[in-house]
């Protein structure tokens, strides 16, 4: 029975009961809900599908296959760790929002048709914004508003695309829009208009270049615990959807390459460490998008594996920064440093997360990222391969070194705080354990991947090369620090594409408004002058001396009457 309902529904509906538990218990309620949902999901039979007939339309509300299984599973794990992490939070609405958000993301990745996907897609947007607003500041409110508008726009595009697609093909089934099998590739030109809109919708949520900035704008404004939720679901749902709908779309390779590159440069100069993590998240999505674009079994496996590992280590990194925010009150690099003395455990967990994302052997990032890079190699895509290597060195820079270094080491800020609360430490310990466990014993993960694989990440040459890349990147950091060439942290705002809609457009609109007002006022003045002239003339004419107002002689009246009669006579004969 329970398996005929969309997975995650337990969390969505259960969340509505959380307010009745009171502030203290609602956090535990959230943990119970996500655990129950995991049990229900775990016991769902393989290749399970449920169809619901609604308004004469068959909706495939549950579709469990290997793709939805791996994403559904990791979404559950993320929801559980994030719930543990948020156990100390007494704000019930955050727990409600978190559960609805996670539940709808899980339901979305188990949706077999575009309408179910759309409903869940919008639900993730609407519920998650409360995790930003919960921060309570004006900045967070505005940022959340921008986030909501952009996310809802993505949903509207998805719905429009789905409707157009339905009109063209008569099908709402969510599958590869190019009809490609793994290993085949297609171009964007082959897409109809409907799927193109859907691609843009996915691209917005997946933070494609130029559509990306909602991510760096909103995530650093979430609450310490809310951002941990945020980091796990929205973007990875987009990755899942891209893999399902557009695997093998060649342009995605280049979009992905751009995504791996530009955020690393922004990350170097960003002061807010949670924003650095948001850029880093963007860069990691790039690896996955490249994998989707390559579209071979190895590449798609790499994407799924990388999404799985990424959700865990990225949560871990956001958790460590959340702990810093919770204790110190800021995550600005300029205000931090030397925290390893007062938060030693958080430091260790953060470094495990940093090591995992950088791809150190024996940690999770290594066994997943390697698949995507190898897939590019196997396809003989030299440029892509080089770009991914540069991006790997970049990851080492912003997440492997910058995050732990500036938060916990660097110059001692003199701040002495308490270690993170026990529940935060527990959640971070679980995530760290997963990072190590997957890195060492990766076979269970590989067995879950969408396609069967015999990939072997731990070849001697591969391990040696990875160590060379990362160690020498670290050496470069030491060199730059010693030579005083590493850019100092500065309290600043760095412009990104959000400048367009936060500065340029408002200013442009203001200028256009000014121009319109100017034209308008000139027009009014001219009109008023004309009317005034006319009235003057009229009053003059109608006055006792005016030609209309003065008395006329009888003869002229008789003359004009005769003229009028004459004209009438002529017209009558005509």
């Amino acid at each position, binding site marked *: 029975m329970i398996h005929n309902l969309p997975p995650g529904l337990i969390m969505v509906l259960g969340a509505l009961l959380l307010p009745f538990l009171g502030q203290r218990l609602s956090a535990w309620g959230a943990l119970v809900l996500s655990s129950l949902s995991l049990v229900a999901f775990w016991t769902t039979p393989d290749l399970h599908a449920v169809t619901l007939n609604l308004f004469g339309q068959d909706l495939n509300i549950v579709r469990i296959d290997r793709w939805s299984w791996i994403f559904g599973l990791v979404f559950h794990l993320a929801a559980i760790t994030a719930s543990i992490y948020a156990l100390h939070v007494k704000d019930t609405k955050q727990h409600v929002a978190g559960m609805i958000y996670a539940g709808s993301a899980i339901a979305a990745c188990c949706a077999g048709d575009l309408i179910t996907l759309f409903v869940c897609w919008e639900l993730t947007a609407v519920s998650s914004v409360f995790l930003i607003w919960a921060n309570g500041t004006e900045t967070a409110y505005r940022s959340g508003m921008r986030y909501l508008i952009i996310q809802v726009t993505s949903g509207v595009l998805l719905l429009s695309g789905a409707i157009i697609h339905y009109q063209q093909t008569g099908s709402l089934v969510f599958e590869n829009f190019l009809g490609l099998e793994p*290993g085949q590739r297609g171009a964007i030109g082959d897409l109809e208009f409907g799927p193109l809109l859907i691609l843009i919708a996915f691209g917005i949520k997946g933070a494609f270049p130029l559509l990306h900035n909602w991510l760096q704008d909103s995530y650093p404004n979430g609450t310490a615990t809310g951002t941990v939720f945020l980091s796990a679901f929205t973007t990875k749902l987009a990755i899942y959807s891209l893999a399902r709908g557009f695997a093998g779309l060649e342009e995605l390779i280049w979009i992905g390459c751009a995504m791996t590159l530009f955020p690393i*440069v*922004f*990350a*170097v*100069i960003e002061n807010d460490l949670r924003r650095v993590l948001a850029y880093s998240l963007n860069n990691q999505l790039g690896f996955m998008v490249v994998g989707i674009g390559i579209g*071979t*079994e*190895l590449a798609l496996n790499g994407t799924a594996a990388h999404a799985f590992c990424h959700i865990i280590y990225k949560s871990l990194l956001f958790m460590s920064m959340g702990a810093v925010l919770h204790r110190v009150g800021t995550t600005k690099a300029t205000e931090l440093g*030397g925290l390893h003395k007062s938060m030693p455990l958080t430091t260790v967990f953060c*470094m495990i997360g940093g*090591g995992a994302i950088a791809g150190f052997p024996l*940690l999770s990032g290594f066994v997943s990222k390697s698949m995507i890079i190898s897939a590019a*190699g*196997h396809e003989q895509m*030299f440029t892509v*391969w080089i770009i991914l*290597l*540069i991006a790997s*060195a*970049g990851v*080492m*820079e912003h997440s*492997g*070194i910058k995050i732990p*270094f500036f938060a916990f*080491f*660097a110059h*001692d800020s003199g701040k002495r705080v308490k270690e993170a609360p026990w529940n935060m430490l527990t959640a971070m310990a679980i995530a760290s354990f997963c990072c190590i466990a997957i890195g060492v014993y990766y076979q269970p993960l590989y067995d879950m991947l969408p*396609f069967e694989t*015999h*990939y*072997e990440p731990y*070849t*001697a*040459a591969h391990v*040696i*090369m990875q*160590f*060379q*890349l*990362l*160690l*020498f*990147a*670290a*050496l*470069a950091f*030491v*060199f*730059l*620090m010693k030579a005083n*060439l590493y*850019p100092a942290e*500065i309290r*600043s*705002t*760095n*412009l*990104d594409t959000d400048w367009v809609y936060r500065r340029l457009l408002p200013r442009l609109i203001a200028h256009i408004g000014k121009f319109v007002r100017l034209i308008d006022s000139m027009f009014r003045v001219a009109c008023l002058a004309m009317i005034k002239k006319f009235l003057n003339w009229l009053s003059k004419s109608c006055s006792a001396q005016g030609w209309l107002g003065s008395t006329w002689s009888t003869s002229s009246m008789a003359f004009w009457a005769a003229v009028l009669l004459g004209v009438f006579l002529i017209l009558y004969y005509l």
Partner: protein
Amino acid sequence: MKTEDDNSKGDDSGGDASWLERNVNVVIAGLVIACIGSLVAQLLWAPLFAEKQGEASHVEASHDNGSHDETSHDEHAHDEVSHDGASHLHPAEFAVEEVFGFEAMFGFAAFVAVVFLGTGLRLIIMRDEDYYDS
């Protein structure tokens, strides 16, 4: 390894300096040794690498095509056993991978390039902290 990298950036700060802060140079030395170690490791593995490359590529290629029949996998497993460590080597997809220290130089150069690009980017996009609030 990771611990060494990140700790290598500790800095002295008087009074209650931690062990790391007092021993930055030790940590940096550790990193340098690890770097040299990774180069030496490549030297040690290099001859086997070249010898094995052809065969390994063949095996890997069969994975990529998604041929999962048991026999080929078994052969692979057998292969690994008979050639011991040699077959664990990663097949080079591009000639440049075989250049000694390629990834080391690449990692160093890419890191420096990214940081310099970032410094340059600051000239264009950096504004006051309250830029959007003003």
